[in-house]
């Protein structure tokens, strides 16, 4: 029996306690004059009992799962021969892996005798641990069940307790996202700190040259190892700017058309079609940008005598802009529709035209939602990777000319982390510093947008 089976049995048993609790409540009800004399509905008693019996068992199970492996491996390591214990940590880990392999799959040709004995010991320790866990779970479960069974009465405020418990469930779900964010921030932060130990933070923030190739051996040539992130952020901002210049007007106007002008039949066809844009995989946009749009821009530029790089910021930005149109249009459309008809009637009643009403009454009232949609689009644009990997190129040029090839933060992170990596070279670690910067920038943008919205919003009821 392994942990997953223990868990299944435990879950089934906890589910059973629901019916036990319900049954108990109905019995209690009979003694005091029927179901209506109970404090709460019988299902609440069932849930209460399942809650009381289930939560401690689940907590115990989770803790056991967390510490079981650590404790057992400590015990095994101590019993290994002295020679093994003196090896460096990485090799000791390797040996332990071999031991646990033997324990699971049997001995192989390379297994030493001490390993086989340790594997036997490991196996028996694991079995003991599981049996102990089952015993603990069962006794705790029965104890709690008996206590709750005995103390449950017709006056038990089961509904209040269950509702309170449910509030905690919701709180836990809400905090998952927050804890994940915090986890990501910390993991990126610690790696970044390691990076900044080898490259000064000022060079990273203000350096104008990006060339992460480092000489690994002293006789290698070519790698200069410059970590100035400015060209990357400039490239990211240039491409995002082009994308927003396309997406914000197009998306907003599309939303206005759909919500204010289009007949219902048109609206119900066009809106899903627009949203299809959001469903196209970005890699498809990527090769559309690289193989169709970029050559088109290059050829068109050639016709009017402009020299356009075949991997231009313009091509990537254009396609990215089209990709994020639905983010702007769909959200804006929803908020524009949510503006009460009475406000429009008020403006029409004063003789305002449709466009005056939209400009002066509807859009200001819908502004927070529209800015929210635009923000989401900006975040998407800044974080977008696939299109720029395929269409924007890798050359870290510091330029404001959209016809030239630029590279972005995300592209560099991808190239830095793809393939075999050494996690102690600044080259690899710089990816985390870039990630941290990107995260910070998005956060600051969000904050600024919140302030803007707060200042300019026109709040209707």
């Amino acid at each position: 029996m392994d942990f997953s089976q223990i868990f299944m049995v435990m879950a089934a048993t906890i589910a059973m306690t629901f019916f036990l609790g319900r049954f108990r409540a109905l019995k209690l009800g009979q003694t005091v004059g029927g179901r209506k004399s109970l404090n709460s509905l019988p299902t609440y008693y069932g849930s209460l009992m399942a809650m009381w019996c289930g939560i401690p068992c689940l907590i115990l199970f989770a803790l056991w799962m967390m510490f079981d492996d650590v404790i057992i491996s400590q015990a095994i390591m101590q019993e290994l021969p002295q020679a093994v214990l003196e090896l460096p940590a990485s090799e000791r880990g390797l040996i332990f892996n071999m031991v646990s392999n033997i324990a699971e799959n049997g001995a192989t040709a390379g297994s030493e005798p001490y390993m086989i004995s340790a594997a036997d010991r490991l196996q028996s320790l694991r079995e003991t641990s599981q049996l102990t866990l089952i015993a603990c779970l069962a006794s705790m479960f029965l104890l709690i069940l008996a206590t709750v069974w005995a103390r449950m009465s017709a006056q038990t405020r089961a509904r209040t307790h269950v509702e309170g418990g449910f509030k905690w469930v919701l709180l836990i779900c809400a905090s998952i996202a927050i804890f994940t964010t915090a986890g990501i921030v910390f993991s990126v932060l610690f790696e970044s700190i390691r990076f900044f130990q080898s490259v000064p933070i000022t060079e990273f923030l203000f350096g104008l040259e990006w060339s992460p190739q480092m000489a690994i051996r002293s006789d290698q040539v070519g790698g200069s190892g410059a970590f100035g992130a400015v060209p990357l952020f400039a490239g990211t901002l240039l491409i995002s700017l082009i994308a927003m210049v396309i997406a914000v007007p197009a998306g907003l106007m599309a939303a206005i058309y759909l919500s204010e002008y289009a007949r219902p039949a048109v609206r119900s066809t066009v809106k899903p079609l627009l949203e299809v844009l959001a469903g196209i995989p970005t890699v498809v946009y990527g090769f559309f940008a690289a193989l169709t749009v970029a050559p088109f821009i290059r050829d068109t530029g050639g016709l009017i005598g402009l020299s356009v790089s075949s991997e231009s910021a313009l091509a990537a930005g254009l396609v990215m802009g089209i990709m994020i149109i639905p983010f702007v249009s769909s959200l804006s459309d929803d908020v524009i529709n949510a503006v009460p008809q009475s406000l429009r009637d008020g403006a029409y009643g004063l003789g305002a035209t449709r466009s005056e009403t939209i400009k002066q009454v509807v859009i200001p009232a819908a502004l927070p939602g529209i800015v929210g949609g635009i923000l989401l689009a900006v975040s998407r644009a800044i974080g977008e990777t696939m299109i720029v990997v395929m269409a924007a190129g890798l050359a870290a040029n510091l330029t404001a000319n959209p016809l030239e090839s630029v590279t972005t933060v995300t592209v560099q992170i991808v190239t830095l982390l793809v393939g075999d990596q050494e996690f102690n070279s600044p080259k690899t670690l710089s990816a985390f510093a870039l990630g941290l910067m990107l995260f910070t920038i998005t956060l600051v943008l969000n904050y600024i947008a919140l302030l803007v919205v707060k200042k300019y919003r026109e709040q209707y009821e």
Partner: protein
Amino acid sequence: MQAVNTPIQKNEKLNANTNGTDQKKTSTDEMNNSAAKVGKTVGKPFATNPKMTMRNVDVFYGDKQAIHDVSLDIGKNEVVAMIGPSGCGKSTFLRCLNRMNDTIEICQVKGEIKLEEMDVYHPKQDVVPLRARVGIVFQKPNPFPKSIYDNVAYGPRIHGLVERKTDLDEIVEKSLRRASLWEEVKDRLHAPGTGLSGGQQQRLCIARTIAVSPEVILMDEPCSALDPIATAKIEELITELSEKFTIAIVTHSMQQAARVSHRTAYFHMGKLVEVNDTKRVFTNPEHELTEAYITGRFG
């Protein structure tokens, strides 16, 4: 009248007997059978000095006819109240007068509505100047989520009525004074209009409407969302406004109609049953349906 069984028989009977009174019927019966009783509009639907004239107006929502052949005049500086049970079409009719029903796609208006010489439903008629001449105040106060000042200044701005800022200030103050709101808000003109109380919001909406200097003001149950004190203020205001404007008001409160209006029109199931001097309608109605309504037998 004797009890009759089939609807057809009933109709024949009733048509033959329009002026007969029957006290025995219950109010629901009366509601259900009453459509047939509405013949030609009784009373005096026409005014000697009309501001707006409506002739043979029919309104349809898709296939459903909401207004049947209504003819009515609204005289200059007159307050005309429109009363009737819920769903009788009085609001629909009111909203036709400045084409607010245009926003409802399936709504179709037939017949003739004129504002002095302007044909309201002429295909080439632009609604913008029309609505500048015929303003409307709605049931629920709907101030824009802008400042009090901007709410009142909105109309003059979009119609380009002023050249200078000082002129605009003057219009705003005058309109707020006329809506008897000035004293309450003069120190916080730049606070949001949505922050006012319900009654103040409605007076703000009235100020917003009169800032455009319309000739006619339509009011669609302007007091139904307000408490009695705010209602009293607005009623007082209506009386004052009638010196300068022509007013058509839809109301559910017969007392209100009696207090503020010169003439009262009683609508019933899309038809105009009776129009007469308000006093006459409430003391000595000509039509049995009007009498039934004002004595509270249905509605």
